[in-house]
């Protein structure tokens, strides 16, 4: 069997020797997830089909994370519907308001394992590729059909190979690798394609950083992103006492549609300027443009993990957020939140003048927090800076890594974190 990792995983799931890009395969997913944003429409479609029982309640996950903590009567009603549905159908992997963001929950609870096939009604499902799974987003009618029948069609994608070499300098992480890649590929350079990561540079990216990197591949149009399992993956899973997974790796002679090399040593903190994630510039350059900010955000499924919390604390310790800047820090899950409390980080954040929020998607799309007025500027560790993503269409959003965001919050303008913390 020859193929890229994605091709091999799809071939295996389809019970085939090998598959070619462009072919359609039919598979039964190992895990499917929906949340309170797409869940209500999925549920409506499912009910219209007149089916009484889902195909396999053990394979279904439902997370309430978008409109949480419950922000409106409509949100509350939707939550109530999904809660009841989970109970009636015997879906035990149901995560209620306050547990955290769906993609982080899947990884944290050990539901994502190498080789697994995961689909969810959310575009950032690609995040799970960091743990070596094939994971991609689907629509709500389709999820209803999967709930009913447990079957799914997938077009086998071509694969772009990205080779990461060298050790990244201080304050450079998964986010900067992703932004660099966005600069090269633009927002549709990976459309329909799988992005597969290789190279000795990977060993410097921990699982949190890898999730950030895979998460942002969606902004390049990718169908999925994937990192072949290695020691970092193994350690991550061992901590969860998961050892009995099958390690599948891409073939040496697999065919790639494009090969891109990035030397991490050459990278520096990067920023995406409004209004597109591929409008990338060095944070240093933007610093010279004197972009005064009104809001800063650390959180979301892109950068809301312990690595981000620790980085933010390192920068905020003994400093103050610039008056006039509202700084929201929202841990991705309850576990991250608790760990941040235990390590004293929440105290550091609060003393510095930041606000710490309940785990949820909130400030990613101004769902109940983080909304902007016209002419305001925000720097966020999230993944999207489209027009109107945080409310007012005139608001300008910059994307950066968590160190860049924290340093900018202190400076009151977009800066390179090295300007505050020194070069190395």
């Amino acid at each position: 069997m020859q193929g890229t990792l994605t091709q091999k995983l799809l071939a295996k799931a389809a019970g085939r020797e090998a598959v070619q890009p462009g072919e359609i395969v039919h598979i039964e997913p190992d895990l499917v997830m929906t949340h309170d944003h797409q869940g209500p429409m999925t549920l409506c479609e499912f009910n219209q089909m007149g089916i009484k029982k889902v195909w396999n309640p053990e394979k279904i996950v439902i997370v309430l994370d978008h409109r949480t903590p419950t922000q409106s009567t409509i949100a509350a009603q939707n939550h109530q519907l999904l809660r009841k549905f989970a109970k009636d159908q015997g879906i035990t992997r149901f995560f209620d308001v306050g547990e955290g963001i769906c993609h982080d929950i899947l990884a944290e609870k050990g539901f994502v394992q190498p080789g697994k096939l995961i689909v969810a009604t959310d575009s950032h499902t690609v995040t799970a590729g960091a743990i070596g799974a094939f994971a991609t987003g689907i629509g709500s009618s389709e999820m209803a059909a999967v709930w009913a029948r447990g079957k799914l069609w997938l077009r086998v994608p071509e694969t772009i190979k990205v080779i990461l070499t060298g050790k990244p300098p201080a304050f450079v992480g998964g986010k900067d690798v992703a932004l660099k890649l966005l600069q090269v590929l633009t927002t549709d350079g990976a459309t329909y394609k799988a992005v597969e990561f290789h190279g000795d540079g990977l060993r410097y990216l921990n699982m949190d950083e890898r999730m950030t990197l895979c998460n942002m591949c969606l902004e390049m149009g990718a169908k999925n992103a994937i990192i072949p399992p290695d020691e970092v993956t193994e350690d991550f899973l061992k901590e969860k006492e998961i050892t009995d997974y099958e390690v599948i790796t891409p073939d040496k002679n697999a065919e790639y549609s494009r090969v891109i090399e990035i030397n991490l040593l050459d990278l520096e903190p990067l920023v995406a300027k409004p209004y597109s994630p591929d409008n990338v510039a060095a944070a240093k350059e933007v610093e010279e443009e004197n972009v005064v900010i009104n809001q800063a955000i650390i959180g979301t499924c892109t950068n809301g993990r312990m690595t981000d919390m620790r980085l933010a604390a390192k920068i905020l310790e003994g400093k103050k957020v610039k008056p006039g800047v509202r700084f929201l820090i929202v841990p991705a899950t309850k576990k991250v939140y608790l760990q941040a409390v235990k390590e004293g980080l929440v105290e550091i954040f609060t003393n510095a003048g930041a606000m710490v929020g309940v785990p949820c998607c909130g400030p990613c799309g101004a769902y109940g927090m983080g909304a902007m007025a016209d002419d305001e500027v925000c720097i966020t560790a999230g993944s999207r800076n489209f027009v109107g993503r945080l409310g007012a269409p005139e608001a300008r959003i910059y994307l950066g890594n968590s160190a860049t965001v924290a340093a900018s919050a202190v400076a009151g303008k977009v800066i390179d974190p090295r300007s505050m913390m020194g070069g190395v």
Partner: protein
Amino acid sequence: MKDCSLFIVSGKVWTFGDNCDTGQIVPGRYIPVTDSHELAKHAFEDVAPNFVKEVQKGDIVVAGTNFGCGSSREHAPKALKFAGVSAVVAESFARIFYRNALNIGLLAIPVFGIRKETKQGDLLEIDVTRGIVKNCTRNKTFKFVPYDQFIIDMLAEGGITKYTLKMLEKND
């Protein structure tokens, strides 16, 4: 094959550019709307206000690259389908739009080089099974890779929902 007319479609062209995102197809303010007929009343509302008034059943949307990018809302293909659009032919599609379109039974066909050879109001004819798009106004023909048989079967049933019900009936 159930309904042959599904597989040879013809209609008047509506042109759009590159990177036409789902927010242009149906503005975000209509997201709470779940009724497809209601959604159809707002198709392209901000970018082509005359679209809804003038679109006729069977009309075809021709667009540039990355059609349907942005938020993964299924509202976008639904609005087009219920507005009467028979097919979207684009240089390329954003993945989730493409998938959602086929799943709800709207033809989405990537055809390289079509956009600059097609003008608003041209008459197009698409032979879905043979993979041919003909611009009858300009007498030009384009080819595309025909759909997999499974996609044809699913389209013939009217989309993934009906297809799934039929498969369940057959105990498949």
